[in-house]
């Protein structure tokens, strides 16, 4: 079973509650309808209900089985606000609660924070930056995390690594130039993200142009410091480095270059780039030369699952992204 089939089966087994806040966009409407029809998620659309209904009618999309939360309904907004303003560590004062409850994106995140939904999903009309900021403000960062980041999963035809064709990676999309502490957080959160999606026991390799001191310098030292910091953050996590890519994922190379016991060398299933330059170029190399799929990026580091999609994402990609987010949300509840 491929990654997507596996994840769809997991999502269908435990359907999560998803709030969409860009319900006037035809792609979001179609994605919500497909997720509902296929029993993959319980969908809510948060927005101007009349406008959402009009858009659905125009697109010929059925809203059957989808709940609408109308942010233009003052009574509903007040009722929700009264419930929200008493949650612990409410991010707004009463006036702010009411102001933000009437905004679709903020309301969806507030519903997630209040436990009304498990996932809030958007990004087709707004930027990743907006999603991250709303997530930071309303959902908040996970304990011990100070930076949001992202992870992804390669599906590389013809490559046989420790998990077959699949390999987790981070961070190619969000944290531009992480310091050692941030890189350690990326390693730890990525391990959780990939484990939630795949069920693997993570073996995280911190990548560099050096393997175990074969080179020296600030860039290498940052990765070494990050490995040490990751061990402190998550003592039971299998995380190791600094490794070159081949030493991380090929047992034959690891045998030559890593002259000590390692749970990770040669059999890493999650690789962590040292910065976004490497991450962005690395993903594009794998996609172009190895004709790989790169699932993600999945935002991570929040108290709950916060996700977005590319503004050019087709409906199929949105559905896939939501399904993966649902599986992560379920894993988070089980943790």
């Amino acid at each position, binding site marked *: 079973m491929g990654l997507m089939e596996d994840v769809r089966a997991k999502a269908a087994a435990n359907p999560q509650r998803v709030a969409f806040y860009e319900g006037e966009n035809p792609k979001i409407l179609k994605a919500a309808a497909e997720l509902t029809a296929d029993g993959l998620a319980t969908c809510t659309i948060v927005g101007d209900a009349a406008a959402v209904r009009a858009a659905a009618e125009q697109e010929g999309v059925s809203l059957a089985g989808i709940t609408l939360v109308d942010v233009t309904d003052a009574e509903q907004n007040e009722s929700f606000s009264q419930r929200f303003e008493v949650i612990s560590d409410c*991010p*707004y*004062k009463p*006036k*702010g609660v009411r*102001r933000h409850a009437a905004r679709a994106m903020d309301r969806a995140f507030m519903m997630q924070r209040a436990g009304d939904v498990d996932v809030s999903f958007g990004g087709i009309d707004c930027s990743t*930056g907006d999603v*991250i*900021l709303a997530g*930071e*403000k309303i959902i908040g*960062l996970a304990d011990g995390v*100070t930076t*949001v980041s992202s992870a992804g999963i390669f599906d590389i035809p013809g490559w046989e690594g420790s998990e077959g064709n699949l390999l987790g990676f981070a961070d190619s999309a969000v944290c531009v130039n992480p310091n050692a502490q941030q890189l350690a957080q990326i390693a730890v959160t990525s391990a959780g993200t990939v484990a939630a999606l795949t069920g693997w026991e993570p073996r995280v390799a911190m990548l560099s142009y050096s393997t175990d001191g074969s080179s020296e310098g600030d860039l290498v030292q940052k990765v070494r410091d990050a490995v040490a910091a990751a061990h402190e953050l998550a003592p039971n996590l299998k995380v190791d480095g600094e490794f070159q890519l081949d030493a991380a994922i090929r047992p034959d190379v690891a045998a030559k270059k890593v002259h000590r016991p390692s749970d990770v060398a040669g059999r890493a299933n999650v690789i962590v780039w040292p910065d976004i330059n490497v991450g962005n170029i690395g993903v594009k190399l794998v996609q172009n030369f190895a004709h790989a799929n790169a699932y993600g990026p999945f935002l991570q580091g929040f108290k709950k699952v916060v996700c977005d999609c590319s503004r050019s994402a087709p409906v199929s990609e949105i559905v896939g992204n939501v399904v993966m987010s649902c599986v992560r949300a379920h894993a988070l509840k089980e943790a």
Partner: protein
Amino acid sequence: MTKQELQDKLAGYAKTAYQYKGDITADTPFDELGKESMKMIALTSLIEDELDVEVTIHEVMKMKTFGELVDRVEEEYEE
């Protein structure tokens, strides 16, 4: 509230949000305070909560000096 009083109040919020120990004046560059989004969120949240003025993070990201923030809040602040 005079503009100076408003500036002093905002400087207090910024010191809290950015955990900044130095003096903050109208000429203090935001680069000196930091660009971390969680700190900007803390600052804009304090402004919204205490003064009922909503300044977005995107606005703050474009500001060069602290004085620009004072001007922006002054425009919208109502006693």
